[in-house]
Each structure stands twice: as C-alpha cells, then as structure tokens.
C-alpha cells in the first residue's frame, strides 16, 4: 500500500532555557493512503507534539528536531523552510484542533477566516472563494451556510464551531488531515455526529486521516490502524481489531482493561498504577518499567527494541522470542495475551 506519511526515528528536543528535554524519542510510524491512523496515549505522551511537528507548528526558538525524518509523499518535512512549509499547511496537510471554542478568531467573521487557505493556496476570485466556502460549509452539514459565512464565532455553538474547523481543514482538499482530539471538548451526542462526519468526509475525499485521541472507543469506531504512544515513544502498533483482541504491550493491556464495561456497573474501574515519568526523569531501560506489572531485570537496564509479529509491532521485552521461551517455562503464558 502506498504510504503517504512516514515518520522515522523522530526525536524532538525542547529547550526551556535551563535544560534540554526530549518529549519525543525515536517515534516511528506511517500512514497509508486513504486510511485512518489512530494515535492513542494519555496526556503528555507526545501525541500533540508529534502532530505539530508534522505541521511544522512547533515553536521555532525553543524546539528542535534532533534526528529522524518526516516523509510526506517522500519529501522530508523536517528540513523544509518556513516558506516551503507554508505552501503545505492548510493545503496538502491540514489540521483540526482540540478546542473549537478558542480555535477561531473572535474578531473575524467565519467567511473571513475560511477564506485564508484559499487565498494563500489557490488563485481564486473573491466571489469564487465565497462560493467554495459556502459549498464546504454545506458539506460539513451546517444549516444556513449563506448566513453563517457572515457571522462571528461567538454566534455558533461548540459543535457548529468544530464543523467550521473541519470545513477550514477541508477547503483545499488536503491529502492528509490531522485531527487532534477533535471531539474531546464536545458533548457525547455532538461527538458522535462529528466522528460520523469525519468518516464520511474521509471516504468522499479519499484522504488519509490521523486521529489523535486518548479515547479508545473513538479509536475502535474510527481507525484502521493504531499507534500507542507512551512517554514520547511508540510502544505498540497494530491493526485496530488485532490491538483490541490481542494487545501485546502491558501498557496497551492496561489501557484496554481501564475501559468501563457495561455489565459491571458497581465495580471499581481498573487503573494503571503509578505515573508517567517526566521526560527529564527517563533513564535507561523500558519507559514503562516503573508501572509495569510484569517488569523483570532486563526491563530496567536495556531499552527494548521493536519486536514485529506480522503487522503487529510492540516495544516490550516480553515479545523477545528468547524471553518468551523463558517465560513459558517459568510461569504461565497468560501474561502475553
């Protein structure tokens, strides 16, 4: 399958004036053409930083891509100049942000803000721009598109604003859309509508979608493949069904166990013990070692490589064929499933 985006061994460094920290260390993933890739992980695991680096939106003065490549259609984005990046943004790659309430400028009309990508990337007359915007607003299911175009963001509800954000991302018919927690700030019924809308739009426009979320139910609903991130690393990657049926990394297992199930109403929810290490606290060994229920000697001293089983990749010593032998002899093998 054709890969539209490949992130290879990405390492990002932030400098806060005193010390350097690396919130992203050796991140590795790809997006196929026409697929939806989910990136899952808890707050602070580096999901958003990764997506911002793909958009070239990391703060220039305080952050730096130390190593790695971001290949978009075989072009390395990590080496683009700001001017080159600007031609891509909102044009071939676009992004939907988490907060629809604050992501639109309160002092400009919807039409004014939506005209920007067209103004920057397409040579269109004013009337043609207006026509295109109204068409896209209708496409995302906004009623009275002809009026909304002249309204201000505060006149719209949260769900409507997120639809406006989606239409902003859609205007130039991008090849890749990144949705960073697009439904987190919305209430549940609106969430379902927005997800449905994203699904339809993706299908119609034949684009690829990266869906960043911490909500596994959204992943199950929307994605073809999933990348699980933890503390700035990709710890597991698998097709969506495979991931839910057979999570290999103890972190993913913990995440899935934490989901509330319908039939056990009063039982206490499962939670993973401990806390995510801060980027400054990360030492030798596996990043999850301090919280892992299956931790053993090697985890604390050596960083696990990515073990691949078909299309299923996980970064855990338990997946080391040699270790698996040992474990099988030692205890039961239930650990893995």
């Amino acid at each position: 399958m054709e890969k539209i985006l490949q992130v290879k061994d990405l390492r990002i460094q932030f400098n806060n004036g005193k010390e350097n920290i690396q919130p992203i260390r050796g991140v590795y993933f790809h997006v196929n053409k026409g697929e939806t890739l989910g990136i899952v992980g808890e707050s602070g695991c580096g999901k958003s930083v990764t997506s911002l680096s793909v958009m070239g939106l990391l703060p220039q003065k305080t952050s730096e891509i130390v190593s790695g490549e971001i290949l978009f259609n075989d072009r390395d984005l990590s080496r683009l100049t700001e001017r080159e990046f600007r031609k891509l943004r909102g044009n071939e790659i676009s992004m939907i942000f988490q907060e629809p309430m604050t992501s639109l400028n309160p002092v400009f009309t919807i039409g004014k803000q939506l005209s920007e990508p067209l103004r920057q990337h397409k040579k269109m007359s004013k009337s043609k721009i207006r026509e295109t915007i109204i068409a896209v607003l209708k496409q995302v299911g906004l009623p009275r598109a002809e009026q909304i175009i002249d309204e201000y963001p505060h006149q719209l509800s949260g769900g409507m604003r997120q639809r406006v954000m989606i239409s902003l991302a859609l205007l130039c018919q991008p090849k890749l859309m990144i949705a960073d927690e697009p439904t987190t700030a919305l209430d549940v019924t609106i969430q379902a509508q927005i997800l449905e809308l994203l699904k339809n739009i993706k299908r119609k426009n034949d684009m690829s979608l990266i869906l960043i979320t911490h909500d596994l139910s959204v992943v199950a609903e929307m994605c073809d493949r999933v990348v699980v991130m933890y503390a700035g690393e990709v710890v597991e990657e698998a097709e969506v069904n495979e991931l839910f049926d057979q999570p290999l990394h103890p972190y993913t297992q913990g995440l899935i166990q934490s989901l509330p199930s319908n039939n056990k109403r009063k039982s206490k929810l499962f939670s993973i013990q401990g806390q995510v290490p801060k980027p400054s606290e990360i030492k030798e060994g596996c990043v999850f070692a301090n919280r892992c229920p299956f931790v053993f000697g090697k985890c604390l001293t050596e960083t696990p490589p990515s073990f691949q089983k078909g299309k299923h990749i996980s970064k855990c010593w338990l997946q080391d064929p040699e270790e698996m032998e040992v474990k099988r002899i030692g205890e039961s093998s239930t650990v893995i499933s």
Partner: protein
Amino acid sequence: MLDFIIKRLIQVVVVVLLALTVVFFLIRLSGDPTALFLPPDASREQIEEYREMLGFDRPIYIQYGEFMVNAVQGDFGQSLRSKEDALPLVLSRLPATFQLAISALILSLLIAIPLGVLSAYKRNSVFDRISVALTVLGQAVPSFWLGLILIYFFAAQLNILPSGGAGSIVHLILPMITLAAYSVARFTRFTRSTMLDVLRKDYIRTAKASGVPTIRLVGRYALKNSLIPIITLVALDLGTLLGGAVITEVVFAWPGVGRLLMQSLMNRDFPIVLAGVFIVALIYAVINFIADILYAYVNPQIRVK
C-alpha cells in the same frame, strides 16, 4: 446598542456632577480666599464685607446648592481676580491643550504600536531587550525633569528650539516629546504584552495552520485582537493627557487648561478651578464613552449584545 449608549451617557453626567461636588468641598477645605485678595492692612470689617459680597459668609450647603444650580446652566461665576467669566476663560485655553495632547498621543501611538508589535514578535531578542529597557526608563523619568533636560539641550545649549511659549509648530516640539515620553513607554509595554498574549492563542495557531504568512498573521490577525485592550488604555491616557498635562504645560509655559488650573489654584481663584475641573472631568468621561462605542466596533461580541 441604543440602550447601551443611553446608559453610558447617564454615567457621563453622574461622573461629572460627582467630580464637581468632590472638588467643590475639597477646595473649601483649603480655607477662605478673601484675605488673599485684599491688602494686608485691610480691617476685619472690610474682610467681612468682601466675604459677604462674594457670598462666602453663607452656610456651605447653600453655597453648594447655588453653585450646582448655576453650574448645570453653564454658569461658573467670574474669576475672583480678573472678573472674567470663568467658563469662557477655561474654554479659550482648550485649543492649546488639545493641540498638545492630540499631537503627543499621535506621536506616541506612531512609535509605540510598531515598537510593541515588533518587540513581541521578536521576543527576547536584543531589539526586544533594548526596547523594554527604554520603556522602563520612559515610565520612570518624571516629566518635569525630562522637560528641563530637553530645554537645557535643545534650547539653552544648541539653541535650535524655543524653551517655552506657543504659537508655531516649532514651539510644540519639546512639550510634545515631553508629554509623549510616558505614553510611548506605557503603550509600548502594553502593546507588547497584549500581543504576546494574543500570539499564544489557539486561533493564531489555527491561522498559521491555514498557511497564513507571518507578516499577515501578526500585522492583520493578531493586531486586531490586541487593539481591543489597547483602545481602552489609549482612551484612559488621552483623558490624562488632556487633563493632566499640568506639569508639562507649566514647564514650557504652554497656555493650556493645565497651566490655567495650576495658576488659579495658587491664587485660590475658585470659580476658574471649578470650571476647569468641570471641563477636564467632562472630557475624561466623554472620551471613555467614545472608547466604549469604539470597542463595540472592534469587538463583535459587544456589538451584537
């Protein structure tokens, strides 16, 4: 919107009346002016007679009531000294004050907004640091000192600009710079911090993600967002510039309201002081009123409500 305007207009009236009341009583606390206007050897009877003539012998609340009734009709009485009508005298000094204040305001905005925007955009650069240092200095330097220094260099030493008085553009330069210095510093700092705040907003990131070039992003998008708080500050400062240029006007012998107020206060010329306070308070309140209307223009959220 009409409701809003009417409500604000009522506020303007209340503010002005309150200011007059406060000043009326405060100024009476400073004592009886009659003695000042009579020769030192005037007898007690003469003083009493003069007091009666001016009406200062009556109970203060009656004086206040009479003053307010007349003031509302625009009659502030006559100067105790020159016997000129107080209000027309103050009004005749207004053009000079306006000329100085408006030119200082324009000068400071022309310097401060680009400086503040650039400082914010190039945050922590050498340019930013120098500009921050200068603005701190600008706010710290008292205007009487700056005025005297400017007079010393440009008038006394170099002899290229007049040290005081009014009448031509050349006379305006030094007082304008003196008066603008503080505002430049204030506006620059404020523009910088507002702009920094706006540049961090989500909607700026959204615009950036749409491919908007940096110059347009800063100059058009972020600036319009920053203008709302800046307008407030400018309005407040214009009031101060108009009413509070007292020191600058005195230092440069500028024939404005500020200097007149100062002189009248020294002379205990109550009618002129009160007429002056009336004009200054009115200007201050009206400018704030205009600023509120301007907000509504810049900020659609207010406009619709």
